[in-house]
């Protein structure tokens, strides 16, 4: 990746409000940050899902972080294209999610809906798991249960 501006680095370090172990850059939500010599910053973020309720919190966090770092003006733009995909999530982010207890997404595949054959339990590492619901605590997750350790867990769906 090309070297990033100081403003990018400030925005990139912000945690996701719903999955605070990963940053908005890790998730691929932060798309672009440009700054001019007047201290004005333009930030582009993209939602994971159209209805993601975290977007406004993320936008407020970005504005607050950049203003308190001394920038004069911050504009946040929501962009929809290109559409966000879990393939943009960094390997580091996937590892952090697993350590947090959320099974990370697999590759997207060719079908209309990615149906993983199995998802590794983030608690005990077993592959003997089953999906209990295609929709979980947020739009981006599905709900799984481990047959080995009996723990329920979230899985970040491929999108």
């Amino acid at each position: 990746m090309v070297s990033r501006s100081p403003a990018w680095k400030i925005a990139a370090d912000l945690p996701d409000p719903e999955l605070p172990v990963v940053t908005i850059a890790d998730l691929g939500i932060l798309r672009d940050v440009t700054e001019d010599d007047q201290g004005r910053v333009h930030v582009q973020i993209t939602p994971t899902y159209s209805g993601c309720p975290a977007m406004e919190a993320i936008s407020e966090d970005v504005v607050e972080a950049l203003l308190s770092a001394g920038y004069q003006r911050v504009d946040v733009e929501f962009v929809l294209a290109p559409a966000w995909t879990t393939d943009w999530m960094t390997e580091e982010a996937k590892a952090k999610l697993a350590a947090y207890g959320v099974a990370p997404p697999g590759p997207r595949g060719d079908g209309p809906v990615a149906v993983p054959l199995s998802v590794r339990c983030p608690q005990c590492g077993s592959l003997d798991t089953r999906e209990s619901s295609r929709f979980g605590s947020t739009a981006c997750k599905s709900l799984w249960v481990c047959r080995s350790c009996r723990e329920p867990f979230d899985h970040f769906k491929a999108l």
Partner: protein
Amino acid sequence: MITPPDSSPPPLRSSGEQSVGDPDRPVAGLVVDYVLGLADDALVSAQRMGWWISRAPQLEEDVALANIGLDQLGQARALLSYAGRLEGAGRTEDDLAYLRDEREFRNVWLVERAQTDFGVAMARLLLVAAWQSELYAALASSSDETLAAVGAKAVKEVAYHLDHATSWVVRLGDGTDVSHERMQAALDAEWPYLDELFRPVEGSVVDPASLRAGVLDRVTPVVAEATLVVPEVTPARGGGRQGLHTEEMGYLLAEMQHLHRSHPGVSW
């Protein structure tokens, strides 16, 4: 159910949008109406889906239907914002969602009627998600950049909705005698409203009629797998795209809009 008589007057417009209602309005006004129709379909679907939260047959289903409704709401917000920009009168997504009256809504009848039977909710979601899958895919390759962006994003979301509805329709249709009978009754109840989705709309970016074959290709194998039969029914009259709605629409709007109208400018 009380439906508007055939002799109903043309839709009323609020004074703030006479440019859209003028018979000699510019083409942009027609596109506004088209985008509003798609936005209202998603918004009203989301509102109906929200009714199921705490009422679904199991906790996981409460969560699933809430998430499906949230996706639809997100799609509606993007489309309403775009309609507001196209109109150029300064109306925001909130103005359009909360301050329009019934006759100014452009959604089809399929999405607006109450769905207090779970079979009906799943039959309707099957039809809506199959249609939106075709619609959003077509918009994604349209020349309208904003609609293409909304479509490309939404098509991935509604794939999950279609998958969810399919699994329930098959499970209930090919289930017990009682669930089979109720799932067929639900499909029979919703099917008359399918036709309105494919009728011509002025200003359309994607020709509604061009989506019919694709929608049926998605739905009929599911109906067959569920051991159900495709209903042979007379299409409902419809009229939502012209602002003519069923009786239940007014009650839906009363619930959806009352907070915003009772307390203008209120926020959390």
